[in-house]
């Protein structure tokens, strides 16, 4: 099976429709890697329980587990980097459209 394009990745992972998913993904992608503990400070447990498995399922992020879950690290994958770039392009296009 051919690898998904950036747009396919973004759409298949629901990053456009699901704002929470997108915000959590952007938090991980922006810092490249982040501790679960730091994410818990920014998002509610429900939001993380909803978004982390979905993002992992879409292979946009992965987890490096530590003995204590709070100190596990979530990091962005190659697919995640591609999706992040597509999201940035999309945001740029929306901003440009808004200005014109």
């Amino acid at each position, binding site marked *: 099976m051919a690898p998904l394009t950036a747009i396919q990745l973004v759409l298949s992972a629901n990053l456009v429709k699901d704002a929470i998913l997108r915000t959590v993904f952007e938090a991980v992608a922006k810092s*490249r890697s982040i501790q679960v503990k730091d994410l818990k400070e920014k998002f509610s447990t429900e939001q993380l329980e909803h978004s982390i498995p979905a993002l992992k399922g879409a292979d946009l992020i992965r987890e490096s587990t530590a003995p204590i879950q709070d*100190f596990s*690290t979530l990091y962005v*994958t*190659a697919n995640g*980097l591609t999706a992040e770039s597509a999201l940035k392009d999309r945001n740029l296009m929306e901003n440009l459209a808004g200005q014109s």
Partner: protein
Amino acid sequence: MFLPGSDGPTSSLTPSVLPEHLWLAIAVAIVFSFILAAVEISREVQKTLRCCLIPQSFFYACLLIFGNLITTLLAAVLVAKMNPGLAPYYWFFAAFFGVFAFETVLKNTNVTVLDKGVLTIQDWLKKALTGATAAAIVRDVRLNDREIGKLAAALAKVPEARLNAFAAIKLASGAGASVVPQLDATAAANKADPMLYKAYAIAYAVSPSVVRAFLTEN
């Protein structure tokens, strides 16, 4: 490519100057390419350079070198037409124009089959850069986890009173004196060993050199 005051191409000069210094132009182009690759990857990874030393970075650098060498060889033909007074430096100009012309060439080159765009060189480089960045992030996470894990394991063996005092001093910002009870409560809420939880909290938040100094004292 003529500089002001140039008399134009001198065919007698061209073959005698450039070929013997061509290897220098190639060497400079390779060095430029490695520097560009290191800058680009570390900018994308946003971490220290140590995690960028991986085979995937080398593949990306090889792709850059390949493109830069071709444009350097092309530039070498053009710089031989510059002012003869600059002849001793032709090799440097060839490398300089070659490496920076590659950016322009990149934006205008397509690999096509039956008039259909297959893959642009820019796409190849982007994919190689993404692969190198992702691999460097994984390496950074593993290196950090290993280091933090070792420090946390050592900290967890320190007597609790000393560890609490160290945590209270080093993690106090924002939480004030209540940092230790807060960590204990969070550990309990997560059903985690409170000593190990505090050890991890310290290992992540405090500089490794400070933690090592504390460990040697205890």
